[in-house]
């Protein structure tokens, strides 16, 4: 008799809390993805070209410098991690972060510059000097690959 009663109460998986948790996770990851995307989203239109190389996983940089066109911001054209900088502020920012940018072997990373197609050459040159000051020698200039 006792065994029979136990067999009647079969264990069940309660789906509803699981669905709640799944939705919570989806919403969390959607919000988190948006935050990360902001780093490469600075109201700019990249130049197009035929032969830029794909960005490899091992060349992913911890720091991206966005350069907006003068019409957007002439005084503070550099956007790094959502903050706008002029060149002096950018240099100061990079110097402060130099230690944390170093890779495990002690080398400095490859830095990526995302410049608007209508931004000016001098702004890239100045940014490069700021990179050199913290011993970053290799850079990548972002572009959108043109389809033939």
């Amino acid at each position: 008799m006792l065994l029979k009663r136990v067999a009647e109460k079969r264990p069940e998986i309660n789906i509803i809390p699981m669905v709640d948790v799944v939705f919570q996770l989806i919403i969390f990851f959607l919000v988190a993805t948006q935050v990360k995307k902001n780093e490469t989203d600075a109201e700019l239109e990249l130049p197009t070209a035929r032969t830029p190389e794909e960005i490899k996983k091992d060349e992913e940089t911890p720091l991206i410098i966005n350069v907006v066109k003068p019409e957007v911001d002439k005084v503070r054209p550099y956007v790094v991690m959502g903050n706008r900088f002029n060149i002096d502020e950018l240099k100061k920012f990079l110097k402060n972060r130099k230690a944390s940018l170093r890779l495990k072997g002690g080398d400095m990373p490859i830095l990526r510059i995302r410049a608007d197609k209508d931004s000016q050459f001098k702004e890239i040159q100045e940014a490069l000097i700021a990179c050199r000051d913290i011993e970053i020698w290799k850079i990548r200039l972002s572009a959108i690959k043109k389809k033939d």
Partner: protein
Amino acid sequence: MKGMVYRKRLGKGRYTLQMAPMVDVVFLLLIFFLVASKIQPAEAAFKADLPGDGRHPRPPEVSRLELVRVHLRNLDVAGETVEVSLNGEVLGGDPFRTLTSRLLAADGSNMRLVIDGDPDVKVTFIATVLDAASAARVKQVVFREPRRDAETR
């Protein structure tokens, strides 16, 4: 009668999951994010290096490469057209096409290309030069340092 028995059993503490409203909500979310999201093209990048200076010398292998200088000069105030010169020679016709063919004809693997230009030259033209250099497999591309006010071109 069999159906009745089944319903009775279901009513005893069991509950069913209403799938239809959940599917509705999932589809609504899906459509919302499809409409709200902006499809971004995959980003690629050009390699470029920085020139050394007294305080920060470059590694010695750089100096063994053949130096080629490309200069861009704005031809109008808006910066919509540029003059391209290669080692001081102004390129005619479609200057970027000429530049590409000149670089392709030379040995890019032994070349160090220095990009120089007016401060207000648009980056789109710099990208076009990088495109030509990349097509010609130029070994190293560097940007010239910005000119100071006292310097003249």
